[in-house]
């Protein structure tokens, strides 16, 4: 089992002929993802790598192939339109990989997808992978292996690091979800935690947060009040200075709010295990699985 994506995921790739889009489409196909369509305006009727049909619009692609999920690799200034186009075309899940989307664009996009009842992951996220079933986005497939751990994170490479260490220790994953590092994103920690709670195959959840905002504190409250499964947490940015944007647009301590210390405290108050170092996840998760 898995959350958000699995064997029944059928994918349309928006921006399939671009540099990033074409590279990662090949990787996804290689991994076993059912890529059923691509979209590049003006290239409708052509085929990607001789196999995947390309359409001019997402509506055409969905109508012709029944794709239920979209992944977006278009440049940042076109990402908002691409997300709304996908929601309008009727897919159920939209995964926006694009980094650098203006936050004001997201203030229009977010209520639109909410009203449509569509799940958006990202933007500025690595996507997600259900090992052995499907991969949508850019998480390297070879660092994952099937197993009982759900992973949710605001980061890309930090997630890879921790998943890799879990896999090396023989601990597999149901689904690894990268929610992205932007201040306004479609799916937050609570959405992912609720999905893992409902997934019978997930036994333990690993959650990697970082400085900025209050998503982790709210997630900790959710863990305490609604989750029966153990959750292990980590916060990056304990050494980050206040007021500076640490790479991710959302990773900024504003005034005295959003510090690593307050988030770690929230985790502890919720009875969660706290990994001090990335490697600590291995022992903390093992303890819950045995």
């Amino acid at each position: 089992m898995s959350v958000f994506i699995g064997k029944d995921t059928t994918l349309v790739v928006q921006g399939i002929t671009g540099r990033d889009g074409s590279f990662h489409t090949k990787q996804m196909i290689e991994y076993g993802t059912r890529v059923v369509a691509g979209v590049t305006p003006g290239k409708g009727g052509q085929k990607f790598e001789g196999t995947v049909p390309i359409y001019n619009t997402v509506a055409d692609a969905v109508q012709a192939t029944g794709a239920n999920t979209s992944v977006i690799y278009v440049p940042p200034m076109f990402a908002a339109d691409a997300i709304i186009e996908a929601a309008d075309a009727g897919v159920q899940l939209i995964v926006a990989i694009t980094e650098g989307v203006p936050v004001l664009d997201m203030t229009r996009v977010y209520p639109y997808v909410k009203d449509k009842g569509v799940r958006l992951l990202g933007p500025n996220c690595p996507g997600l992978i259900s090992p052995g079933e499907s991969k949508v986005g850019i998480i390297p497939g070879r660092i994952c292996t099937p197993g009982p751990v759900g992973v949710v994170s605001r980061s890309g490479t930090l997630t890879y690091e921790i998943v890799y260490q879990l896999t090396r220790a023989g601990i597999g994953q149901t689904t690894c979800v990268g929610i992205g590092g932007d201040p306004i994103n479609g799916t937050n920690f609570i959405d992912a935690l609720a999905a893992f709670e409902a997934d019978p195959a997930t036994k333990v959840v690993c959650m990697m947060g970082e400085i900025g905002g209050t998503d982790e504190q709210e997630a900790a409250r959710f863990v305490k009040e609604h989750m029966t499964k153990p959750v292990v947490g980590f916060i990056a940015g304990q050494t980050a200075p206040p007021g500076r944007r640490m790479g991710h647009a959302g990773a900024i301590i504003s005034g005295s709010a959003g510090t690593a210390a307050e988030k770690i405290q929230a985790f502890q108050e919720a009875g969660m295990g706290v990994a001090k170092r990335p490697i600590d996840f291995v022992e903390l998760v093992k303890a819950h699985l045995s």
Partner: protein
Amino acid sequence: MNIHEYQAKDILRAIGTPIPPGEIATTPDEAEAIARRIGKMVVVKAQVHAGGRGKAGGVKLAKTPEEAREKAQAILGMQIKGLTVEKVLVTEASDIATEAYVGIILDRASKKPVFMVSPAGGIDIEEVAATTPEKILKLPIDTRYGLMPFQAMRLGFFLYDDLAKARAASKIMQQLYTAFMQSGCSLAEINPLVVTPAGEVIALDAKMVIDDNELDRRPAIAALRDETSEEPSEVLARNANLTFIKLDGNVGCVVNGAGLAMATMDLVKYYGGDPANFLDIGGSSNPEKVVNALRIITADTNVKAILFNIFGGITRTDDVANGIVTATKENPLKVPIVIRLTGTNEEIAMKILTENGFSASSDMDEAVKKAVQLATGGQAA
């Protein structure tokens, strides 16, 4: 990106916001000439990207042009929170009856721009929020509809009981919202918004922070960047497409990905060291980026050891290895380097490094420990 007070005022003035006249001066002579043109009492205000300018002595009243010259002389070149004042705004002084706060922030919780207004203006709004939250009205705006007239009036009436003043304020709210949206802001503030003894509502100070993601599509706003007011190493890094933030420690860090970069800094601290910087070389694997990263880090004389932590996903570790070799051939290192890399093309990267006299490990904790040891003068493990 931060812009200066005078730039934010120019944006607002252009759409009709009442703001006292003022001009920018970089020398005491210019300040005197501007004060003479204004012909009234003026305020000389330091233009730096730092709060608390008044407390630091960067804002002074001047009754005569000669006095404006003296004040400018004192303020130009002074340091405020580590930043040198290169420019002053010389602006007409206003008599103040009451002061209010008006701001818009991009709020992550509501996922909307939120208006914050308070009749308790002129002071730190965070303090008002903490001590007397009932004096603040917060109003989220749905950007699909924009600021609606009734909302603007509600904000105006929260500040002033008098209809004429509430109307004047609501017009300024509309202008601030327009400026916020058209400039791609993440924050826009008028603090204080004042009522003069004559009953006029005017903006005495303005602040705007621009979302960096907006700059590509707003060249006129991007052109407002003042590189002289930023840390030189950070300017260099940005021009090389690196995300770099200078810190005070002695372990220079080069990492791919923001989350891993923060986690690496934290691990340096965990093992008893102090990171010298945050540096994210990003997802693409261009050896030139590594060369620039090393150039920036080695320019910091505090750095006693350099730590590479690369998890190759999209980033090809052999490209990073090539970058390290190229950079150190151009500029031989004076401090020890510890390299951790794993992932895409790891074997090729290891081979490149070994052939060029470097060693590398694939374990993050080991590498961080070793870098901390080297930086603190201990022996390599």
